[in-house]
């Protein structure tokens, strides 16, 4: 018997913006919002764009089969009206919402979904998201450029069927990822490599202007399939603006949101002024900052040494170093992630205990090592604080402060004994505990060039992870999360990382911006969920 997970009616209700939990005030339609960024927007091609700046814009221009309720991590149907999962968890059948049109006026069909997913997997596209589709049958052949995915078909214009090679509970999240967003073949072929500059999607906004190096203007899509959304007539993204200058402009009311956030050097000043502080929205973020220890090299091949490092770091003080913009972390998952173990206290801050562990490991006199760190503020300051803590137990860590790309390279090559992950590593791609494991703690990432910088590979835990992700029945979601919680607790016993803090997000918005606070710290749309915010009056 197949399970109908979401009925059409339920899906339609969930899609209604007025009922979305994040929508607390009455929305006004119209107006233009201005957001600024330091860096250029790289691309709006959903198969290629892979940073938070372009992700949230891509989310406004395109849609996927699945989506999230605004301001939350709760999945809801997007372009799919409903879906069914076969009892063995291997077949997903999506029924498409009828009448959805691309910005070029053509109606979207199941063939477009098939084309878009195949395009993301095709090696010629060079998509950084290719690996996310590994559970679809025929992935290996398709990823090697030997034709389309065998496990993906469109039996009719309104139905898409995925056959998986293994049950995978994260699959619906993958269908909500930008890499799965639906693009029209004819527009992609017409624009060629420039599709990222001439995007055509089904989303709430369409790109009206892109002046390279200066601004992008997104205009409301009047035919958007969710009625009444978006509220804004348009939003403008101005690029090339230093965060300090952007803040000055925000303070003068010239812009609505500094997209890069409040610069660290200005944070205390802003929060100390009640007028400005009340315009700042704080929220959790699916992020963990951690120190990796290369478990394949002495002295970090000894678990006692790794545990000692965990106990030596004064996390509260590091949070102070960044003006309280985070909460101390005790495990890989951030608190807002499902599967987070609430009753786990983590390693205590205990320098005497840490010294004892070092003695047990045969390093009573400590040792010399290197701590790699990305060279932008506040990361070197954080590394210095860690360095001081380690010195207190006899570990002399020389700081290697390098450009981001160089630290990533050293981490991938396994030449960095310790790395402070800040500014480079993990913010979740999707809100599921699995996303914090595979590439950064699993064996698959512990290869030359992989993102598992501690090179930690525990085959038993990998097997447990596969087992957990095989539980696809939504009724057994808690069982699955409990398994993930166990996995992360086992990781902490082996201590390949010292989790340090979970960053909090602080978004400064102009007084005229309306919409629930959650929209301004939306966990999947950074800095804001452009589709649902509005201008008061």
């Amino acid at each position, binding site marked *: 018997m197949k399970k109908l997970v979401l009925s059409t009616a339920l899906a339609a209700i969930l899609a209604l913006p007025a009922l979305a939990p994040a929508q607390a005030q009455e929305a006004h339609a119209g107006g233009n919002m201005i957001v600024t960024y*330091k*860096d*250029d927007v*790289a*691309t709006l*091609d959903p198969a*290629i764009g*892979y940073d938070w700046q372009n992700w949230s814009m891509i989310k406004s221009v395109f849609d996927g089969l699945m989506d999230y309720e605004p301001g939350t991590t709760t999945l809801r149907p997007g372009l799919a009206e409903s879906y069914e999962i076969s009892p063995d968890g291997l077949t997903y059948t999506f029924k498409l919402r009828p009448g959805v049109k691309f910005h070029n006026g053509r109606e979207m069909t199941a063939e477009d979904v098939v084309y878009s997913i195949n395009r993301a997997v095709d*090696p*010629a596209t*060079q998509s*950084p*998201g*290719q*690996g*996310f589709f*590994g559970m679809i049958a025929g992935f290996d052949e398709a*990823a*090697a*450029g030997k034709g389309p995915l065998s496990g993906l078909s469109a039996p009719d214009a309104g139905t898409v069927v995925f056959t998986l090679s293994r049950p995978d509970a994260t699959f619906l999240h993958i269908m909500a990822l930008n890499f799965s967003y639906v693009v029209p073949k004819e527009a992609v072929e017409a624009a060629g*490599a*420039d599709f*990222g*500059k001439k995007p055509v999607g089904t989303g709430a906004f369409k790109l009206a202007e892109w*002046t*390279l*190096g*200066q601004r992008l203007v997104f205009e409301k899509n009047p035919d958007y399939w969710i009625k009444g959304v978006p509220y804004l007539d348009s939003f403008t993204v*101005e*690029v*090339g*603006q*230093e965060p*300090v*200058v952007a803040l*000055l*402009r925000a303070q*003068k009311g*010239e812009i609505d949101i500094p997209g890069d956030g409040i610069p660290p050097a200005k944070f205390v000043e802003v929060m100390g002024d009640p007028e400005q502080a009340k315009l700042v929205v704080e929220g959790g973020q699916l992020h963990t900052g951690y120190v990796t220890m290369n478990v394949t090299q002495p002295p970090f091949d000894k678990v006692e040494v790794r545990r000692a490092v965990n106990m030596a770091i004064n996390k509260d003080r590091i949070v102070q170093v960044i003006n309280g913009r985070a909460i101390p972390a005790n495990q890989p998952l951030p608190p807002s992630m499902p599967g987070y173990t609430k009753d786990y206290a983590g390693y205590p801050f205990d320098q005497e205990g840490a010294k004892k562990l070092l003695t047990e490991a045969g390093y009573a006199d400590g040792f010399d090592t290197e701590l790699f760190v990305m060279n932008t503020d506040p990361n070197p300051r954080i590394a210095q604080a860690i360095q001081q803590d380690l010195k207190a137990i006899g570990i002399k860590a020389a700081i290697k402060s390098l*450009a*981001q*790309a*160089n630290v*990533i*390279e*050293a981490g*991938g090559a396994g030449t960095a004994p310790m790395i402070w992950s800040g500014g480079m590593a*993990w913010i979740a*791609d999707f809100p599921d505990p699995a996303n914090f494991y*595979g*590439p*950064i703690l699993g064996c*698959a990432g512990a*290869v*030359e*060039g*992989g*993102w598992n910088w501690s090179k930690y590979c525990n085959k038993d835990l990998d097997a447990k992870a596969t087992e957990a992700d095989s539980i696809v029945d939504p009724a057994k979601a808690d069982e699955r999360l409990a398994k993930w919680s166990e996995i992360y607790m086992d990781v902490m016993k082996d201590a390949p990382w010292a989790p340090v803090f979970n960053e909090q997000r602080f978004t400064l918005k102009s007084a005229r911006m309306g919409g629930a606070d959650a929209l301004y710290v939306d966990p999947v749309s950074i800095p804001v969920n452009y589709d649902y915010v509005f201008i008061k009056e």
Partner: protein
Amino acid sequence: MLSYILRRLIQSALILLGVSFITFVLLYVLPADPVRQIAGRSATPETVESIRRQLGLDQPFFVQYGHYLWNLLHGDLGRSYLQKTEVSALLVSRLPATLLLMVAAIFCEVAIGLTLGVIAALYRGRALDNMLMLGSFVTVSAPQFVVALLLLYVFSVKLGWFPIGGYGTFAHLVLPALTLGILGSGWYSRIMRSSMLDVLRADFIRTARAKGLGRGRIILGHALPNAILPIIAMIGIDIGMFMSGIVVVESVFGWPGIGQLAWQAIQRVDIPIIMGVTLVSAVAIVIGNLLADLVAPLIDPRIKLQ
């Protein structure tokens, strides 16, 4: 004249070839892999290798460099690794802003530098001279970022005379041009001062005085045109020095020029853009020097092109 220009052009082409080679070598040995940046965090080793192959980065160094030069000869600077946009399109979109800022800034620094240099020379050894020379020392050593933010804070935020960064109108141009102008003026004022002092001691100035010419006429009509010669050569050299300042100033003022593009590309190891910007800068320096050499004989007939 024609053979001189031809010779200089050949020299310039060789210089550009050298610049392209050195930059290519430096980026080749850089301990950062652009393919990792493109492939992202979840890439399998197979994906990484596939992208490396497609970009030709698995080829030996000289094959890659030869390929780059061949494309360059056909006017193809390649596509950005991360934006997938043609580098030439990115450069063309940003060059006008940089050229505008450069011209305005050079005008500012020359105007400020010459004025202060002449005044210092005329008041040689006095308090005003010492003050101006101390001031020039401060301006050449002041951090660009600090001066830019200071001007922005005072004239835009506090006084509200100019917009807080951006591009498009004359008002947007004033502060970035002034920042670069103030910072660069120190060199000009120092050179102008010593050049002016040399000229003021020359025989023809004494003759002019003996003939009873007025002080203003002597300074403006005789001393200045002769003292200005070293400045012409310096403007050519200055274009090269300008590039580093432009990166910072463009970033602070949100000026959409190639300095800003370069800075972003360096952070992301987007090699085709870094190569493109370096070559454009090198071309600007070469042209600047060539123009300076060509203009010098027009001002001073004693100088002959050889």
